[in-house]
């Protein structure tokens, strides 16, 4: 999946930066001011964001490392227990461990988000690149289509698509992805148009480059940076939207742990068991904020 790859790549790059700046700090510690500067350059907020993301990804990949409880099978007589040493986040109405459900839910929510971003990234960027490089009538036709897509409220659009495709986590993810095609297309098109107008692209044509070569060698690499940063931003948004669909009951069917569904299920017990809605809600918020912070730093790296 392209989105995942890109994020992995930028994770490496970011780490390299951090290593570089901290070793530079070690080389000459002459004053307190330099220490402070090194600290600021590491950016604790960004570190925290990467940490949160890493934990969530690990949850999704290896849930068994973090909990031994089953996310779907409850234990009778242990219903609606408050957080304790045994069940860190308490249990739900069926006696299932909430932490286990959140950890196992990460896989569903995250893979859903990746599918959604993947759909938007691939289809949207392709449309944008075609529009930006073809110009003229093709550009006009594609971009007016995109305008139509943008004019429909996103939640309404994704609900309609889920209803068309049928309920389920994958369909919800696809629905969310389709609604983000328009934004990706717009961004990709504007970047392609910007890069196309640059002297080095003209020079590439001027030295006998064919259209596809120039597109591949210059236009794509130079316009995709912002698109990738935007994809990271969309990841947070996709988690949120998929949770919304789950909450409304259009996502994963009930026994499956999914963050939106967890919040929806806990809603009925909010007076007796506040943790059932609050904790999954906090997890969603933290994950989305982290994705946003990371995307921001990717955008800055480009500049």
């Amino acid at each position, binding site marked *: 999946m392209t989105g995942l790859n890109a994020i992995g790549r930028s994770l490496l790059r970011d780490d390299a930066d951090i290593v570089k700046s901290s070793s530079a700090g070690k080389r*000459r510690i002459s004053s307190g001011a*330099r220490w402070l500067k090194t600290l600021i350059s590491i950016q604790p907020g960004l570190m925290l964001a990467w940490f949160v993301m890493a934990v969530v990804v690990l949850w999704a990949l290896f849930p068994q490392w973090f909990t031994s409880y089953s996310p779907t099978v409850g234990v009778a007589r242990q219903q609606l227990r408050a957080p304790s040493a045994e069940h860190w986040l308490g249990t739900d109405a069926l006696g299932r461990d909430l932490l286990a459900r959140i950890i196992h839910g990460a896989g569903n929510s995250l893979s859903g988000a990746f599918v959604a971003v993947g759909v938007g990234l691939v289809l949207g960027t392709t449309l944008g690149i075609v529009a930006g490089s073809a110009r003229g009538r093709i550009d006009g036709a594609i971009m007016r289509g995109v305008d139509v897509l943008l004019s429909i409220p996103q939640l309404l659009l994704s609900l309609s698509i889920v209803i068309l495709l049928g309920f389920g986590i994958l369909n919800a993810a696809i629905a969310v992805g389709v609604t983000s095609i328009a934004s990706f297309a717009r961004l990709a098109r504007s970047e392609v148009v910007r890069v196309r107008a*640059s*002297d*080095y692209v*003209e*020079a*590439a*044509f*001027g*030295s*006998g*480059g*064919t259209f596809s*070569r120039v597109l591949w*060698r*210059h236009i794509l*690499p*130079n316009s995709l940076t912002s698109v990738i940063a935007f994809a990271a931003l969309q990841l947070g948004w996709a988690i949120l939207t998929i949770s919304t669909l789950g909450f409304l009951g259009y996502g994963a069917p009930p026994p499956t742990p999914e963050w939106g569904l967890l919040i929806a299920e806990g809603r009925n017990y909010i007076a007796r068991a506040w943790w059932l809605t609050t904790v999954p809600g906090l997890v969603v918020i933290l994950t989305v904020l982290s994705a946003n912070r990371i995307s921001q730093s990717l955008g800055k790296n480009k500049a």
Partner: protein
Amino acid sequence: MTAAISIEPASTDVSNTPVLEISNLAVGYRGGEGFQRVVHEVSLRVRPGEVVALVGESGSGKTTTAQAVIGLLAENGRLESGAVRLNGTDIAGWSPKRLDTIRGSKISLIPQDPTSSLNPVRTIGDQVAEVLQIHRQGSRKQIDARVIELLARVGLSEPELRARQYPHELSGGMRQRVLIAIAIALRPALIIADEPTSALDVTVQKRILDLIDELRREYGTAVLLVTHDLGVAADRANHIVVLKGGRIQEQGPTADVLGSPRSEYTRKLLADAPSLGKVRSIHRTRSTRTGASDDAVVVENLVQDFSVGGRREIFRAVDDVSFTVQRGTTHAIVGESGSGKTTTARSIVGFQKPSSGRIRVDGIDVTNLRGEDLRRFRRTIQLVYQNPFASLDPRQTIFQIVEEPLLNFDPVPREDRAKKVHAILDRVGLPQSTLTRKPHALSGGQRQRVAIARALVLDPQVLVLDEAVSALDVTVQAQILALLDELQQALGLTYLFISHDLAVVRQISDTVSVLRDGRQVDGGRVEDVFRNPGSAYTRELISAIPGQRNASLRPFQ
């Protein structure tokens, strides 16, 4: 807070107290590498009514010095030590608030870029009035009257109308006049002019410099003129300070500095400045070779129209231009911005179809080329762009950049390509170690060499140089010009040299076409055009070349 000192309003009395005295100034910037000092031990004086020119290349610290005087250093800049005395009072340690009391009234600034220095959403009148309001110069009505007076004084026609207009409605030269009006509004003792004309055409530059001169005489204001152009300094300054790497290389009265330069660097600058240095002998050697009547480029009655504002209106960018260029010679197309010189070049390279007329390059009719034929044709003619920062893909290495044209045509084995790239890099005088770097790690001059290498790697017949040396410092410019000459001798290249700079054109061209508003107003052999200009406009262009006033002082003639 009122100024604690009394700074004499500028008067014509030539007392010996300097208006500005900088002593042992040191300025540095905080950056990724820690604190870096960029101005070292700079000392200079500006006496009343005097023009002192601060001359240097980019990175010499000239602008930093000027900014330190008026307290406008960038946020990470710091004035480390030294004194800045304005009429005897040290203002070096003053807070920004305290400096506000003298900015505009005692010292003012004419900034470099007239397009970004005016607020686009406020009228010209408002912006001139602002400085008067800040320093409380009378009632609204009085201020309005004064604004009109000032706009008239700086030579703007219809000042009442101008006061109501917005910056985008004015040309570059007019905007610079507005900025001058703001600078002189309170009759300051000192005006700092930071490259006031670098963004303007040469004829406009001359008029603006004349205006500054005239106002200086009238008001007795002293001027600290920051410029990279030694020609401008030679014409306008009483006193020249040459900076390099943040240190003063040499300073003294203009005549002395130009007539008998003491430092090696000044001598080099003088030799490299196209407007000051001797007329080169470069093209003298060439005339012997150009016997064969063999034309590399033939342009006949070229017309280029563009549609503007929908499809009704037509703008004629190039109107009936014709010239021929012999193989192995250099033809210059000269004109100011908007004269159609770049449009002409782009038509010749085949980036746009002419509306009418014929262009033949190396015997091929460019006007009828399409698709694959056009692509094949690109081997014969290559374009080098003005800005080497924009014409190289920031993501490619130098090797990839230079190699790329070779991939576009008949397949060449990998080793041969590498060999060719190495050879061409030697040719343009770049070390092989640059091959693995990316453009951002190179200087402007090195990048332009890369751009030339990329253009040459296909062995073209004709090279079109679109203001290819305009963005470079004079010494780098001189190196690139020498390189171009050497390449022409060695490879028999034909150059089409697009430029606004007549001094450079005189140095390297054999023939020239002068364009104005898309029309060809003059043309022929360079010496003939310079000796007997065929039009009033050519005469005006030639007389606007800076550095001619004190021609007798030049050491090289």
